[in-house]
């Protein structure tokens, strides 16, 4: 589904990704772990198409399409979802309006008919219910006044509504208490655990992986994947730290 080869990327002239290669197949959950500054969030932003991140070498294909050639909104329409470490507050734009615009824009890019107001509200209400988010929060401005946990829960509601093929989740577990972690973990499993879908979980800690069991774990250090293994690698990292493994 996703094939990254020898990816080099820089921001403000500073190289952050230094030859990263990774292949994710449909039906798989991959976890990327690594120390601060290794380039984990940069990988997410490069895949999402954030301006300012310049790819200097390498390639990324998604379902056979050159992902790097697509605009950020086209990547979303192609089925890529980027869950933010710090979801952005948007005063004056309600969650409902934002999500309906987003979903219908994606559908328009894919030449599908827009959902009516009624159809959309039913879908949004259903997803909010499944994630234990109060429906009233959908009417509020996007993420404004939300706690850290509510923002992450909102990311999952958004993911449920747009129903992507591939999700890159950047530290979705940060700022969550144990109950919220379980809800978010359940959400990821419910929305993304399917034979035709895949997930790239970017995380610092093992704890999210107790809820969302990865098929593969990779260690990212200094812009490259330095080690790959199964879910036991995460446990080993938790007990031994990155120092020995990443060296």
């Amino acid at each position, binding site marked *: 589904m996703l094939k990254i080869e020898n990816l080099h990327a820089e921001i403000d002239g500073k190289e952050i990704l230094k030859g990263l290669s990774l292949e994710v197949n449909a039906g798989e959950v991959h976890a990327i772990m690594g120390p601060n500054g290794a380039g984990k969030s940069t990988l997410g932003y490069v895949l999402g198409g954030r301006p300012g991140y310049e790819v200097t070498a390498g390639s990324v294909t998604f379902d056979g399409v050159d992902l790097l050639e697509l605009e950020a909104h086209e990547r979303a329409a192609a089925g890529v979802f980027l869950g933010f470490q710090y979801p*952005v*507050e*948007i005063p*004056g734009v309600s969650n409902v309006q934002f999500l309906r615009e987003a979903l219908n824009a994606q559908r328009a890019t894919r030449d599908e008919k827009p959902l009516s107001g009624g159809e959309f509200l039913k879908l949004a209400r259903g997803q909010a219910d499944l994630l234990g988010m109060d429906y009233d929060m959908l009417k509020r401005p996007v993420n404004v006044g939300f706690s850290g946990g509510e923002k992450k829960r909102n990311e999952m509601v958004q993911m449920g509504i747009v129903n992507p093929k591939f999700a890159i989740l950047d530290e979705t577990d940060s700022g969550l208490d144990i109950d919220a972690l379980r809800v978010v973990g359940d959400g990821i499993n419910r929305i993304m655990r399917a034979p035709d879908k895949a997930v790239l979980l970017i995380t610092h800690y093992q704890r999210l992986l107790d809820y969302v069991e990865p098929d593969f774990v990779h260690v990212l250090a200094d812009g490259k994947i330095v080690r790959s293994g199964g879910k036991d690698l995460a446990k080993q990292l938790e007990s031994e730290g990155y120092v020995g493994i990443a060296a």
Partner: protein
Amino acid sequence: MLLDLPSTREESWRWGDPAAIAAAAGLPRGAALDADAWFLDLPGARALFVDGVLDQGRSDLRHVTMTAIHGGEHALGRRTTGNGWSIRVEANAGVELLQIVHIATGGENQLPAEIVLADGARASVVETYVGAGWSNRSTRMALGKGAKLTRAVRLLQAGGFVSLRDEVEIGAEASLIVTVLGAGDAGTRIDGAITVTGDDAFAEYGGALLTRNDQRQECAVSVRHAALNGQSKQIWRAVAADKSTASLAARVEVARDAQKTDGVQSLRGLLLQRTATVNLKPELEIFADDVKCAHGATVGELDQRALFYMQSRGIPHAKAQALLTRAFVGDAFVQIADETVREAFVADADAWLERAL
């Protein structure tokens, strides 16, 4: 054409554009636009003015009369002295909404107006300006004790210039809400002097100016508190694209005896391109010692993080810009109580965004 207007060396005309007014006055006359498209679907009285002249056949004046009105001493207002429209409402009475469409076909046109509300009286007015030319208006408003006036003004002329001179006196416990939207391609000057003369009164005067290409729009409005316990709000938003200039000068004066005044002033500008200009001048002159006057003035660009967040969810860049800009402008429309009028303002702003982005 030489017009006897103040020079830009005068502080209150610092961002004024007398040359654009003269150019607008010199525009050749053309055919009038279709008026029906500009009236909102609301019951009430209707007046259509073409180049400042009442079109009796297509108006339904009801409580509105035409009468001789003095436009005041102000440089813009005094030019309007002559026959104009008038609403006078008796004590404790309410009148239906009045909608006015002003169509300009070229050249200059002048029109004075007055709205006089006796104690406890209520009125609302919606005005829409379309066409091209120089439309110059003065409106004198006087609110008796406990009177309520709402006025919404849509400046949608495709060319030329619209200048408004408002002079208002607000009596005790009375309430004034004026909202102006500049979303056409004409130059604009909104010139207002609001005086709170009675205790416990409320004045809200604000709106949004949206400019593009090399257009210039400005407001220069002062609210003077001369009585106890008054509240005022000046919420203005400016959005400037291309090489345009939007200028907001808002002033609050609190006289020595106007204790317990509560004033809010919020001037915010958004630059859609770095070639555009937003000028903001919040002014406070306070002589009383027990007052609260909040004020804020900021100019910035759209939040790049929010833009990327929206794009990452599938919203194309231009649409994301439009949603964020609309949210920014929306702050200035919240006080419009009538849903149809508020929706018209939002639709006007959306139409502008379609053209500008």
